[in-house]
């Protein structure tokens, strides 16, 4: 097919009244360069970090292999406390998974314009946390090779799936949430994957990777309309799904008639805790990304301030729920509830319980309440305390009840072994490793969403008269865009 190629016309001259064409193009190039730099450049620090994390992961895998070979006796788990640190980590990571998708969906639905640079970093947390959390179920199983018995598959063992079991509800909801979160992460990535594809040269494995992942995205108006609509619909689907996941996780405990588990507020209490720890995880991740990738001009103090305010709101909510839960138990003074209550508040678990109160309430509250300390660093310190506090909260919930069942002769203590601690450390390392690889392969700040956010802000500034008005022709088009958008 003959190709005719010709160049006609010249770039429109740039003037104060017509600031758009060349300036915007240059700006686009700068944003692309900044946000795609980590994808195109690999530093020595990356390899060192990946190597160190790999070592920790390898150690954890070895510990797990040892546990599989020797049996669960190498852990601190015993007949009474049969769910221990593994299930604590399962609940903790499922909680963290509420970070991205739910927060991103809420901010998207409420059209919060400051969300644009943070959504992808948050959504990635969800996916990786959801990959790691349920892994602890596998670790907790003595005979991991029989895992598929949990799946709702017909079998020949006369053991059909019991749909009345909250464990099966968990299986269904977590898998649905994982699929939804992966989709919700992937959809907004498609235009950026195409951007990387088209910014790369013709050779190399990376080009094939991005070509494959970007599918046939060309950025036509039709594709943009469909994508934005699909993301909006996904945001609506994902919110109840996220809430259901942690509610069902709480029902794994709440549906048993155990002291301090069988509580009507466990569902919302767990959801609030999950979002609380999720926001904290997002803040920490953003701070690390901002510092290491030098993205201070993209992940600004404003984002930390706003996320800090969200964290503050959930800090108060969590405090309220915790107070309500413990006060109700104390006033009821139930025969079986009080031993668990006392074990947590003034017994063997007291240091961990009060550590939780310090981490979740006493430290973050003053740090987040004042604008002066709600800086990127202050917010991150508060978030780190929250993460530690929320992990302790999961521990006191799981171990507190199991170590003090209704029959007092069954009371038992639990101490984690080196195997459990190694596997837990490996999980944290694995999470960071996955995040590191993700931010290496894909733009961790959504390029197109960031640009879209800037345009929205510019439009608002023009409408408010804070920005010099563009030329008449340009103003007419801005009006058209606003009417259409």
């Amino acid at each position: 097919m003959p190709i005719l190629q010709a160049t006609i016309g010249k770039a429109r001259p740039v003037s104060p009244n017509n600031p758009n064409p060349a300036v915007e193009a240059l700006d686009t190039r700068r944003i692309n360069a900044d946000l795609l730099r980590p994808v195109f450049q690999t530093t020595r620090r990356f390899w060192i970090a990946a190597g160190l994390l790999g070592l920790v992961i390898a150690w954890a895998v070895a510990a797990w292999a040892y546990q599989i070979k020797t049996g669960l006796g190498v852990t601190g788990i015993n007949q009474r406390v049969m769910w221990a640190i593994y299930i604590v980590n399962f609940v903790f990571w499922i909680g963290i998974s509420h970070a991205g998708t739910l927060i991103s969906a809420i901010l998207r639905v409420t059209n919060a314009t400051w969300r644009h640079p943070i959504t992808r970093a948050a959504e990635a947390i969800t996916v990786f946390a959801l990959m790691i959390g349920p892994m602890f179920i596998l670790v907790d199983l003595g005979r991991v090779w029989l895992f598929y018995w949990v799946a709702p598959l017909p079998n020949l063992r006369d053991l059909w799936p019991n749909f009345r079991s909250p464990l099966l509800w968990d299986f269904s909801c977590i898998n649905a949430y994982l699929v939804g979160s992966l989709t919700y992460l992937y959809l907004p990535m498609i235009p950026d994957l195409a951007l990387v594809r088209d910014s790369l040269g013709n050779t190399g494995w990376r080009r094939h990777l991005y070509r494959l992942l970007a599918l046939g995205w060309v950025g036509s108006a039709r594709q943009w309309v469909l994508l934005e609509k699909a993301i909006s619909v996904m945001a609506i689907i994902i919110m109840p799904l996220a809430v259901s996941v942690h509610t069902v996780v709480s029902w794994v405990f709440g549906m048993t008639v155990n002291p301090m588990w069988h509580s009507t507020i466990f569902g919302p209490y767990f959801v609030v805790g999950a979002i609380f720890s999720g926001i904290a995880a997002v803040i920490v991740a953003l701070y690390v990304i901002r510092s290491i990738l030098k993205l201070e001009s993209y992940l600004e103090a404003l984002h930390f301030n706003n996320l800090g305010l969200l964290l503050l709101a959930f800090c108060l909510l969590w405090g309220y729920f915790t107070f309500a839960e413990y006060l109700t138990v104390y006033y009821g003074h139930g025969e079986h509830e009080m031993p668990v209550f006392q074990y947590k508040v003034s017994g063997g678990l007291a240091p961990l319980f009060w550590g939780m109160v310090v981490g979740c309430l006493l430290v973050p509250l003053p740090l987040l309440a004042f604008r002066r300390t709600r800086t990127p660093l202050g917010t991150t310190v508060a978030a780190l305390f929250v993460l530690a506090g929320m992990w302790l909260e999961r521990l006191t919930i799981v171990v507190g009840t199991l170590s003090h069942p209704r029959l007092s002769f069954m009371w038992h203590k639990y101490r984690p072994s080196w195997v459990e601690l190694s596997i837990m450390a490996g999980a944290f390392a694995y999470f960071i490793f996955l995040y590191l690889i993700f931010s290496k392969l894909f733009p961790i700040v959504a390029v197109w969403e960031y640009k879209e956010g800037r345009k929205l802000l510019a439009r608002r500034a023009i409408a408010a008269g804070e920005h010099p008005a563009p030329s008449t022709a340009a103003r007419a088009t801005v009006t058209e865009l606003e009417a259409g958008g």
Partner: protein
Amino acid sequence: MSEASQVWAVFADARAALAIGQRWPDAEVFSSEPIESPHGNHAAVRTRVGLAAVVGGVLGGLMGSGLASVTSIWMGLQVGGLPRLAAPAIGIVTFAIAALGAISGVLIVLLVRGRILRLKLEVPEFARHRVADGAVAVMLRVRAEERAQMARELAAAGAEVQVETDS
């Protein structure tokens, strides 16, 4: 009547590209950022994404409730507590699989109606590189005798323009 040609133009200015698209009926605009269709606005476009989500959700819900109900009736376990066919338990599984159905519906519509599964990209490589740099590409389908007029209009738009035709 002469056969129609596909003509490519790449603009540095999205507004100029949109203006060209509005004047020429058979035009498509490509951009690395969300952009209006030259012949309509986002709100007016019927994407059927919402409908697909609802249909997928209903189908998923039917599958979920069927899976849980049929299994519970035919192969129910005799355990205490809830009855063999327990509505709350079935409801939760139904909800999760309905959500999966809705997600699948959204994905299918996006991939099929957005023509995203095509391996051969609609935009030539020279244009895609420019689009990645922030330019906006316009594809015009014009008849051969209109090409001169089209070229004049593109020039009048004042943006830097590269033109390719496939005939």
